[in-house]
């Protein structure tokens, strides 16, 4: 029995590429029991998103008939006591900065500016969700260990005697200022501002949609650069920080120690002129119901986006259901951004929606700055781990600048790296079968709309920004073959097809995963939907991005919520179905008949569903009203990622360093583990000595990653490395034999299962002759017992 219609096939160089299909065979024997080993997609069978203000959210949490399960983006505003069945999680919401007024005559000198920054720190009030932290890298950044010596403990931040003389620009959030602080509309000294991490990333060109984010998007040094660099006045200072930034993003360093020194130099350079500084951060507190019967569990909190993350939505489970159930999510604020995967979904609600319906190749790991494979798997190649150029095959494809047309790269082309991907294809929600053109068209679109300048006929600055890395570093793409794998579920066998694709890049790094993140050959929307959007923009119906929409006084392209746009887009679909339209960039890959079939499928889809949000993700938009968006799960066994895939990210364990001591050339670290143990429908936090058999609720051993950094008295990183577990369960760092005379400080942290959130960092001062000073914690890590 075949579950799929004949696939449209694409031919490239004689290679037949039907990328996905599923076959189910008739049962031959009773070899299956009741259980099934694989279930496609994730736990809830329905997700409802409702824009709610904080007061309404508080009321809906105690709604007896249909309680709210979680509230994303803000804390509910409770009129009285917080109900006992609610729990909350924290994540980094925003950074609080102070910027010196460049017009201020009394703050022209560096020393005066630095003094003003200190005064501003002293004037900062501390509401419960605000932490004074005069450094851009926070405990919610994974790179905080390598900056541990630079963050003064909170208690060391004291209010300067002259703090009250500083004047603040009118418009500052007064709740952040101590009462004596003075505010002025003119002649102010400093501006106190708060920028959310998500807004900062959007300004930095990080898309929360179809485009891959840069590998370092969650790194503290990257965010610090985006935040502080625009305030630097001196051209030579800007040039210096740009050079450091370029070296970091181009991996121009010999080893990890040099990389960390570059990051630290970048921070030094960004902060050196005291024109802008980070003086604190605000935490986002989000609530969910932990009710025994109707609550949720399996909570994976992202360090920087909290509950608004793709992995959270792929782990969260209703307690009342082993799987299935309807998850009700409130979100604040109301959605404002358009829903299009090219340059939309940029606000909190939009990101949530894209996390549900979209399915990027890699997803951000919740508790560190790495990425986890989702629809793309990296395969080793002959060139893995080598830093030497590779030849790009003649028949590899490359988009032409401006036109985006995909053509062979031709002979004698080289690249610095090759990445081999195995992709997990699946059908799109309009029934179209994923083909080579779907994988490749985003490249064409990136070059077409990103490469030309502002005056080009096809250009969008936000696409240019989001695709900069792809365009800078991609040197060729080659579809190698399609692999088939069978999955037997009960007595039915499903065949998944996985394209194997080589990508050639000018990206010099030993870190294969970093290269893989630059330009993965993947799309969560089919080529015909991308082409439809392009056509709409070219015909002046709408603009991809909000910036271009404002500039041209056009609607922001929305595939769902603007009836007028939908009407126009439907007319386009019918036109294209008649002509068999396919973009010029795809003429090599898609014939007119195949194109016509695609447009007909899309026409049927919009007729049946009333929207054009066609994706290949784990959920599909089922119904929409101004107050509720309903998504239904994809339980088709053609969907290749299944229940439980990301469960390991829920309730990450945390290490607490208990002692550090030096014995000869070793520094020995003892630690406890704080693990969450699942018991029936509840979870309990357990603290135990960190040993190899330390268990967590899912019965799999905790995997420690231990790191140390040694900093000399000149604030240079002189050694980095991993600690080695000893037979007595302590972790040992071997001190380098090349330590020069003087005082050094060793900082160590143990990240359990890679969890870097708010780490307990231990420090010990070392003189060549032995230990001096006392070992103890560094920074402000909170070692107190936490609730899961």
């Amino acid at each position, binding site marked *: 029995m075949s579950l799929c219609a004949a696939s449209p096939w694409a031919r490239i160089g004689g290679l037949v590429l039907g990328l996905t299909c599923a076959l189910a065979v008739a049962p031959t024997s*009773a070899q299956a*029991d009741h259980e099934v080993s694989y279930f496609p997609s994730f736990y809830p069978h329905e997700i409802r998103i409702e824009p709610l203000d904080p007061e309404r959210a508080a009321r809906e949490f105690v709604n007896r008939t249909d309680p709210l399960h979680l509230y994303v983006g803000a804390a509910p505003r409770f009129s009285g006591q917080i109900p006992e069945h609610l729990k909350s999680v924290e994540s980094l919401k925003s950074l609080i900065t102070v910027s010196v007024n460049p017009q201020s005559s009394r703050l022209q000198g560096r020393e005066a500016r630095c003094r003003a920054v200190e005064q501003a720190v002293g004037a900062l009030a501390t509401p419960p969700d605000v932490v004074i932290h005069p450094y851009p890298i926070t405990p919610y950044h994974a790179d905080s260990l390598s900056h541990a010596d630079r963050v003064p403990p909170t208690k060391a931040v004291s209010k300067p005697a002259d703090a009250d003389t500083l004047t603040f620009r009118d418009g500052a959030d007064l709740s952040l200022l101590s009462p004596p602080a003075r505010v002025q509309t003119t002649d102010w000294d400093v501006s106190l501002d708060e920028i959310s991490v998500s807004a900062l990333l959007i300004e930095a060109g990080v898309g929360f949609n179809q485009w891959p984010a840069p590998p370092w998007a969650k790194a503290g040094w990257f965010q610090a650069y985006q935040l502080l660099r625009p305030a630097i006045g001196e051209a030579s200072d800007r040039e210096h920080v740009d050079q450091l930034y370029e070296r970091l993003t181009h991996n121009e360093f010999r080893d990890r120690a040099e990389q960390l020194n570059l990051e630290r130099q970048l921070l030094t350079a960004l902060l050196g002129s005291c024109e802008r500084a980070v003086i604190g951060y605000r935490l986002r507190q989000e609530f969910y119901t932990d009710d025994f019967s109707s609550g949720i569990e399996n909570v994976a909190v992202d360090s920087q986006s909290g509950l608004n993350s793709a992995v959270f939505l792929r782990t969260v489970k209703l307690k009342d*259901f*082993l799987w299935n159930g309807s998850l009700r999510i409130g979100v604040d604020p109301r959605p404002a951004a358009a829903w299009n995967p090219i340059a939309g979904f940029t606000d909190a609600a939009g990101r949530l929606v894209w996390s549900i319906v979209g399915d990027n190749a890699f997803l951000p790991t919740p508790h560190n700055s790495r990425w986890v494979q989702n629809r793309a798997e990296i395969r080793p190649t002959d060139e893995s781990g080598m830093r030497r150029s590779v030849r790009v095959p003649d028949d590899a494809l490359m988009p032409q600048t401006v036109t985006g047309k995909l053509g062979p790269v031709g002979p004698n082309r080289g690249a610095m790296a090759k990445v081999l991907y195995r992709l997990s294809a699946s059908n799109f929600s309009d029934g179209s079968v994923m083909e080579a053109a779907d994988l490749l068209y985003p490249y064409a679109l990136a070059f077409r709309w990103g490469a030309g300048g502002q005056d080009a006929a096809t250009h969008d600055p936000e696409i240019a920004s989001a695709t900069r890395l792809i365009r800078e570093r991609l040197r060729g793409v080659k579809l190698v073959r399609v692999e088939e794998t069978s999955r037997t579920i*009960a007595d039915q066998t499903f065949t998944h097809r996985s394209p194997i694709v080589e990508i050639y890049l000018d990206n010099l790094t030993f870190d294969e995963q970093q290269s893989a993140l630059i330009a993965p050959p993947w799309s969560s929307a089919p080529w015909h939907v991308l082409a439809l959007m392009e056509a709409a923009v070219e015909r002046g119906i709408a603009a991809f991005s909000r910036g271009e929409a404002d500039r041209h006084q056009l609607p922001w392209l929305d595939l769902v919520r603007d009836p007028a746009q939908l009407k126009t887009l439907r007319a386009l679909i019918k036109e294209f179905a008649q002509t068999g339209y396919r973009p010029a960039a795809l003429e090599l890959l898609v014939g007119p008949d195949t194109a016509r079939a695609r447009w007909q499928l899309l026409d049927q889809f919009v007729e049946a569903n009333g929207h054009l949000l066609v994706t290949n993700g784990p959920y599909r938009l089922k119904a929409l009203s101004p107050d509720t968006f309903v998504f239904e799960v994809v339980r088709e066994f053609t969907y290749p990622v299944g229940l439980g895939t990301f469960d390991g990210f829920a309730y990450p364990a945390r290490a607490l360093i208990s002692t550090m001591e030096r014995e000869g050339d070793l520094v020995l670290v003892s630690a406890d583990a704080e693990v969450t143990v699942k*018991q029936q429908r509840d979870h309990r936090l357990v603290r135990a000595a960190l040993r190899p058999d330390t268990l967590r609720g899912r019965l*799999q051993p905790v995997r420690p990653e231990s790191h140390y950094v040694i900093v000399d008295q000149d604030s240079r990183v002189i050694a980095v490395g991993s600690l080695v577990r000893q037979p007595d369960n302590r972790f040992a760092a071997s001190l380098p034999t090349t330590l020069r005379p003087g005082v050094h400080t060793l900082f160590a942290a143990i990240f359990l299962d890679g969890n870097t959130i708010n780490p307990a960092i231990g420090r010990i001062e070392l003189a060549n002759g032995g230990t001096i000073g006392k070992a103890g914690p560094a920074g402000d890590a909170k070692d107190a017992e936490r609730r899961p």
Partner: protein
Amino acid sequence: MEQRNVDRRSFLNNLGVTVGAAAAATAIPVVKPASAQSPAAPKGKIPDTPLKFGHMTFLTGPAAVLGEPSLKGHLLAAEEINATGGILGKRKIETITADEAAGTDANVKELRRMKLSEKIDMFTGVISSGNTPALGPVAEELGLLTIFVDGCTDFLWDKAVPNPKFAFRITNIQSADGVTCAVAAAQTWPEAKKIAHIHPDYSYGRNAFDHFNIAFGKLVPGTQVVSEGWPKLGTTDFTAHITKAMSSTPDLIVSSVWGGDYVAMYKQALRYGMFNNAKFASTIAFGVAPHAIGKDHPEGVIAGVHSNYYFTFPPGNRWPANKTFVEKYYKRWNEYPNFQSDGAYHTLYMYKTAVEKANKLAGGWPEEEAIISQLEGMYFETAAGYLYIRPDNHQGYKDAVTGFSKNVPEYQFQILDPNRMITIPIRNITAPPHWPKPGSGHNDPTATYNWIKETWPQVT
């Protein structure tokens, strides 16, 4: 074959069906778990090298709801045994785990790796019936003593390993699900003639459908299947199947939908009042971790547990083995065991007992064949009652159980009423040794199906 007509009551009595709180007893000498016996000094020289066990179970994916209890049962037994110095007081148990969700091919490779590289002494676990028929022959080929905790398909012994030497299995076989459900329904609701079915559209559903019908038809004359619903794999909306079943105005609705699918189905069925208008019987509704079933589940329905074990039965101190096991399990894991926990836990104790008995006979650490000979034919006291290992097919047999759902204040979730449990001696609902397998003289789904068809009388 001659068909005899007898009345239902007599036949159910002959089957040994009991209803209530009493545990079934037997006159056969029973081996108590080694934990309950005074440790005797082992004979001969016992090495002190650890015993390596491989335990494969689902640690991820939907079946982890069964896999985790299995591993917890195994670990609890291993911890207890190690706390007393290990097996024969010398050999502590080290467990290597593997995630069964890796897929059948990967699991076969992992079993070979465990034996050839890790040098495991024994292999246990395995939940999926898709895996036991693949792993059983490999265990035989490797000469690796193996006790499967589940993977209960009849196919394992009918076809895949018809003459096992090294492989054993201790859960009741799959055909018992449909038959147990049928016997319980016939005992409880003999007036039910119009039957509606809702089963998952894969082999387990068809197995349950076939075996329920063949048994129920023998026990209740004049029955009629008035509706069949076959939700596809992955169905989330059961409305069409619920309304179809209800519109056929059945006396009884029978289902083998499992896990999260079952929870979704019963919650949707509550909205339609499905449980108000017909009786309901399931083969497997409570065959998950006990805390998974909410208090909104309908009370008084037959809620099967895969014919194996439920922690509330036998209740109180009527069967100390169960009381002790539940207490120890709860103390260790803060939750209640399911049939996988019971199976994995007692697998280790059966092995320990077999080793001790073999040691008594010959001294020293016994050869594998000596351990196997002790396992064959063993009657063993478990939390679920007496377990008998049939020598001819190495299958464990224990009384099949099912029961009625009930809310009680002691638990935050719904349980099976310990005072209304139905038990059936498994030998009376399973094909006897040497009964022809499918393909040998008949083409019925299983030997048990054919045996019931051919030998059970049509009751009046």
